[in-house]
């Protein structure tokens, strides 16, 4: 693809601008669904955009003795990492930047915001922030292993480390959610933990340690970190939709090129909304569990389920290859 089309791909359509709009739309939907489930009216459509612009306009407060430059750079780093991860997930058709092993890159880029949260907690010299940061890292150790295992089993079955190939493989076989149900469930729970949403929002536990690592963030830093969380929600659900629900491709080929793009985008849209609906209802239906309970749940149930899933996939591969 020549340079101009690539630039459009990165900056305009499935890249920067579209991702921003889609992130705001996702935040609006998430707050609206959980509000309606709590029998409230919920925010208006442009609310996330208004929050973002207002936060940009607020005064930025620096705590005494804080490393200003690092504190400014951290949110930008987190946002950049999550945005580049979105480029490798197929949206319309195959993503032009795909290469063998981009699944590993996306997973790595998705863990960067948690480390940045820990960094923010550490830099802001506030007891609540530090404890929040330590909890964020503790939580990451717990859910990271099962989440990675659950997301790597599709690669094992499809025999390739690139998301685009996995999506292409699913075009000719059943959806991986059907073939690997346990992996699908573990991936959803892991995603909920990565996005630090209610059953697992221990670092930001509003009623225990004020706002965790977010306590000292004000003005544009807060705006960027909120945006990072929204974008990582979009990227996470797009990743789960691509790996388990078949992504934007349809089994039979559609002749005119632009029509297949539109159908592909519509499928992507519907599938990511489905994932969001599941995440929002988990958030509404449960309370927050403690860090040590998360430890038990994480290692006893999630990890074993992921390992069992890997075993099943290896066995299935063995039979298919031999059959």
């Amino acid at each position, binding site marked *: 693809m020549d340079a101009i089309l690539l630039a459009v791909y990165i900056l305009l359509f499935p890249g920067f601008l579209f991702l921003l709009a889609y992130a705001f739309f996702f935040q609006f939907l998430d707050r609206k669904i959980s509000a309606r489930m709590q029998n409230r009216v919920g925010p208006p459509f442009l609310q996330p955009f208004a929050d973002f612009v207002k936060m940009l306009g*607020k005064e930025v407060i620096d705590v005494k003795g804080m490393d200003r430059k690092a504190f400014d750079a951290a949110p930008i780093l987190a946002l950049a990492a999550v945005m580049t991860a979105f480029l490798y997930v197929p949206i319309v058709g195959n993503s032009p930047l795909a290469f063998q092993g981009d699944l590993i890159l996306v997973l790595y880029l998705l863990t960067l915001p948690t480390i940045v949260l820990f960094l923010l907690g550490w830099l802001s010299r506030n007891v609540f922030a530090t404890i929040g940061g330590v909890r964020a890292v503790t939580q990451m150790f717990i859910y990271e292993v099962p989440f990675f295992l659950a997301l790597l089993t599709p690669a094992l079955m499809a025999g390739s480390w690139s998301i685009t190939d996995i999506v292409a493989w699913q075009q000719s076989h059943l959806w991986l959610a059907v073939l690997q149900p346990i992996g699908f469930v573990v991936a959803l729970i892991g995603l909920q933990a990565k996005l630090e949403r209610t059953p697992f929002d221990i670092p930001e536990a509003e009623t225990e340690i004020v706002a965790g690592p977010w306590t000292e963030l004000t003005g544009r830093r807060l705006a960027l970190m909120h945006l990072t969380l929204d974008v990582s929600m979009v990227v996470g659900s797009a990743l789960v939709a691509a790996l388990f629900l078949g992504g934007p491709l349809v089994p039979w080929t559609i002749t005119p090129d632009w029509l297949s793009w539109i159908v592909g985008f519509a499928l992507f849209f519907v599938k990511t909304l489905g994932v969001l609906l599941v995440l929002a209802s988990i958030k509404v239906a449960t309370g927050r569990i403690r860090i040590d309970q998360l430890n038990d749940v994480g290692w006893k149930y999630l990890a074993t389920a992921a390992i069992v899933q890997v075993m099943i996939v290896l066995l299935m591969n063995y039979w298919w290859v031999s059959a």
Partner: protein
Amino acid sequence: MTLSQRLANWARMKSPWITLFNSGACNACDIEVIAVLTPRFDVERFGILAKGSPRHADILVVTGPVTRKQAPRLRRIWEQMPEPKYVIAMGACGASGGVFRGLYHVVDGVENVIPVDVFVAGCPPRPDEIINAVVACLGLLKEDLAHGGKAWRTKPKVIERVVPTEGTPVPPKPAEVPA
């Protein structure tokens, strides 16, 4: 005003975040402020969110006559909030100490500790009056942005004393009125 200025004003009007500070109140006002967040009065439809930390909030809702022990903390919380910040003093206690005026452990009213922008009448004010107060506070925010800051409306601290023309009886100063 430039486009970006209008956009900033629109955004500030559309997403006021409040934080609640109980400065020694009888917590009737507090449960009414929390009732504002619940399904019947639901303020999230106006974009109002209740934030835990003063760092993230725009409007500080203060309830109760400030007790002597809570006054320095109220002052520190107010200083921690980032600029364009506003203060709503709740109920009769916030305005003048209400039924607790003159008690030995109470600094009567929020005015003596931090500058207040909006007072809400009532003991406790009903939830819809509280929403009305936030809307009034947003109106104030709009005017302040037009005049560039709060200076235009803060009344001068020193009130000059009007020299009475002879013949008219001088009203006794409040201290002289027999208690």
